[in-house]
């Protein structure tokens, strides 16, 4: 009996080819929208995760102030760190690989008549280690340069290209606003980060030079630490917290006025955002699937009206209510499942194309494919039920008289 219903349903669908096609199209659009948007959203999440890890793994960021401010951070009223804090980290904490004090400021880099807006970062050689930078040419800072705060700089690839083009910049002089400094090295390129900013667009100078000649104070905005292994992150994190509570004289029971974050948390915070976006986009797409379901209901109601006489004949011959109900329900579910299968296919094709255009990784998620299919089948059952019940509850005498 069930196979008969499937066969009947398929025949009915084929008989009204155009009508069925349009109804199926509604489901196809809904299912493929869900799959495309969710897949691209997952791709974006994967991209963010990958890029944060490319910043350097096993990193800890220590910043003054409470809470987490995301990339770029925000100014806090809490006391700034000093270069002594960074040194204390490297002398007192075990299990760490490198420490980098870090202060940034937007600036103009000038060479001759060329002018480029960039960011100048005051730091130490530790920065290269912590952030996984490699030199393309030239050398790192020497200890003397670091200690004396000499006016030397290492250029990011973008700055080098803008100011020097194809020339070799090593040994040349550039100006960072009023500070004249000699180029001693160029970094290898890393490219765009997922936050849309060019990681290669920066100039590194010794932190002492930054403090004295650019910022005019002794502050350090943040301290970056890289840890030898992932296992060491938690112990290092707690010893850092103890060290800074001690150095900043925070009494028992008082809250920290600084925070220590690892890249894991950064990833969580950022992927949290993209995940919310993915969910919202998926929900919008699900609404279009709902509209597709209303299309099914509409066409099934038309079908029931058109086939009133047929229903009357079936009831008169001895069909049970349940049997008529199932016949029409199977038809609705067949339409929605067919739309689901085609929608999965087009959704995956659209996701692959979209991922290519948006330079996102294509993350195939079988879970969402399965859910999309089940959801489309459920749409068929839910929106097919009312018309099917209407058919099943017809009075056979009236249905037979129906013209």
């Amino acid at each position, binding site marked *: *009996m069930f196979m*008969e219903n499937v066969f009947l349903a398929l025949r009915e669908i084929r*008989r009204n080819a155009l009508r069925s096609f349009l109804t199926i199209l509604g489901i196809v659009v809904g299912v493929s929208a869900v799959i495309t948007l969710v897949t691209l959203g997952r791709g974006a999440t994967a991209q963010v995760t990958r890029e944060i890890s490319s910043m350097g793994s096993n990193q800890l960021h220590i910043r003054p102030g409470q809470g987490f401010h995301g990339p770029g951070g925000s100014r806090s009223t809490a006391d700034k760190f000093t270069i002594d804090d960074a040194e204390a980290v490297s002398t007192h904490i075990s299990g760490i690989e490198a420490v980098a004090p870090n202060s940034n400021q937007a600036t103009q880099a000038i060479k001759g008549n060329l002018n480029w807006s960039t960011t100048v970062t005051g730091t130490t050689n530790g920065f290269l280690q912590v952030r996984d930078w490699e030199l393309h040419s030239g050398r790192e800072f020497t200890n003397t340069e670091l200690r004396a705060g000499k006016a030397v700089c290492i250029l990011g690839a973008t700055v080098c290209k803008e100011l020097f083009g194809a020339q070799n910049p090593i040994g040349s002089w550039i100006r960072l606003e009023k500070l004249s400094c000699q180029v001693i090295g160029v970094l290898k390129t890393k490219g765009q980060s997922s936050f849309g900013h060019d990681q290669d667009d920066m100039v590194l100078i010794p932190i002492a030079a930054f403090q004295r000649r650019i910022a005019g104070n002794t502050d350090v905005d943040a301290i970056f630490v890289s840890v030898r292994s992932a296992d060491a992150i938690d112990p290092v994190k707690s010893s850092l917290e103890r060290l800074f509570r001690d150095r900043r004289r925070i009494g028992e029971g008082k809250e920290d006025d600084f925070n220590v974050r690892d890249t894991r948390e950064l990833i969580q915070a950022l992927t949290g955002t993209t995940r919310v976006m993915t969910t919202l986009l998926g929900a919008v797409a699900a609404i279009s699937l709902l509209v597709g379901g209303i299309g099914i209901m509409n066409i099934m109601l038309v079908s029931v009206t058109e086939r009133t*006489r*047929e229903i*009357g*004949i*079936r*009831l*008169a*011959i*001895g*069909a*049970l*209510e*349940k*049997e008529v109900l199932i016949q029409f329900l199977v038809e609705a579910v067949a339409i929605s499942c067919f739309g689901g299968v085609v929608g999965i296919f087009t959704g995956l094709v659209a996701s692959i194309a979209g991922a290519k255009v948006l330079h996102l990784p294509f993350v195939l998620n079988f879970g969402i494919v399965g859910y999309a299919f089940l959801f489309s089948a459920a749409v068929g059952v839910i929106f097919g039920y009312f018309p099917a019940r209407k058919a099943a509850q017809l009075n*056979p*005498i009236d249905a*037979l008289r129906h013209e």
Partner: protein
Amino acid sequence: MKENHPDNPLLELKAVTKVYGRGAAAMPALKGIDLAIFRGEFVAIMGTSGSGKSTCMNILGCLDVPTDGKYIFQDMSVGGLSRDQRALVRRHFLGFVFQGFNLLNRTSALENVELPLIYRGVRPGERRKRAREALAAVNLSGWEAHTPGELSGGQQQRVAIARAIVSHPEVLLADEPTGNLDSATSRDVMNLLQRFNRENGITIVMVTHEPEMAEYAGRRIHFTDGLIDNGLMKRGR
């Protein structure tokens, strides 16, 4: 269900009334009918339109229930049955032939005849065989693949008769079976019904307003204004 005692009627209406509507708008269609039909009979129900003969037919066909009174089918009271239980009675014991043929359009003659067997759960191979036999019995061998649109009115009605008898029902209920047919094809249809009644022993109850067609029946019952005129319990051939 076992066969009822041969002395008991196969179908029996006892003081059956049927009222459509309620209160002031109430419209009685049957005003107390007593009727007994025995196994193997061929009964014609006659009357003008509005006399209650169609209502009576719907009740006999378990498509409708009496407002009051009793309908006993094979010693079983139909009044207390649910909608689905009545559907099962129709499925297993009744066959229908309608004035308007009521075949499924765009569906072949063979599949139309198979339909009652599908609901009876007969396997596809067996179903096809029995449907072919039924079509042969109404002289429509070779027309199996034709859809109703490709058949004449008389042929369509013969397909409908094949559909009614394919499940070997106890009773065949025919509602104006010749109403849409010319007199020559009407006679063909009536001859077929008469043959099934005589040779296969199928009990037939037929509604008609044409006295000529009623002549084929063994007994005629006249309805006037919701009541039976004559023929009360009169048996005969």
